[in-house]
């Protein structure tokens, strides 16, 4: 059974600090997605990582994928309040198109 684990599940940090959210998964896959969800809102796609070593950056967020370690990271640089949200990683099964989701990391950035 594929498991996707995010760490930490909750993170409170100050503006201007750097931090990393980790996403571990338990089976072979080379397709991993990061999404953002604001309270009461829909899921917004952040990154699509499609191969080992893939790195993508958008503003203060950078995501990477290591398929051999079955690990993806989402790094936040110089956090700002607007990045407060819940961040989910999701792994696409090799055998089909189902996404298996982590439980989410609730990020609170204090001004």
């Amino acid at each position: 059974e594929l498991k996707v684990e995010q760490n930490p599940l909750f993170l409170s940090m100050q503006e201007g600090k750097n931090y990393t959210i980790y996403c571990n998964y338990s089976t072979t896959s080379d397709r991993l997605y990061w999404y953002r969800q604001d309270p009461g809102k829909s899921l917004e796609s952040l990154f699509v990582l499609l191969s080992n070593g893939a790195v993508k950056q958008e503003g203060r967020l950078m995501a990477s994928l290591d398929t051999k370690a079955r690990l993806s990271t989402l790094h936040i640089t110089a956090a700002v309040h607007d990045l407060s949200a819940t961040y989910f990683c999701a792994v696409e099964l090799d055998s089909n198109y189902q996404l298996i989701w982590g439980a989410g990391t609730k990020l609170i950035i204090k001004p």
Partner: protein
Amino acid sequence: GAGVSQSPRYKVAKRGQDVALRCDPISGHVSLFWYQQALGQGPEFLTYFQNEAQLDKSGLPSDRFFAERPEGSVSTLKIQRTQQEDSAVYLCASRPGGATNEKLFFGSGTQLSVL
């Protein structure tokens, strides 16, 4: 449309009542998914359509759940004889093709509360 639209936004049902949740995907999108999201959890896959064909319904939790997409655009998720454990947010998502490496576009969801 500009995005994936779901209705109603909120639904309160009495236990045993039937409900129907609607999803309007982005126009022209081939793939449509339904997910269930419990409070504080990640979404869980329910079912997948490619055009009007339901290719996977392995995530539907019981035979009380039924989904359709008869003309390959709008989809309806129906839950019969609702139970309290059905309370969750039901998310619809679509993507342009049938490829497995495209990002999903999600609707805002229908929050179902079963009393």
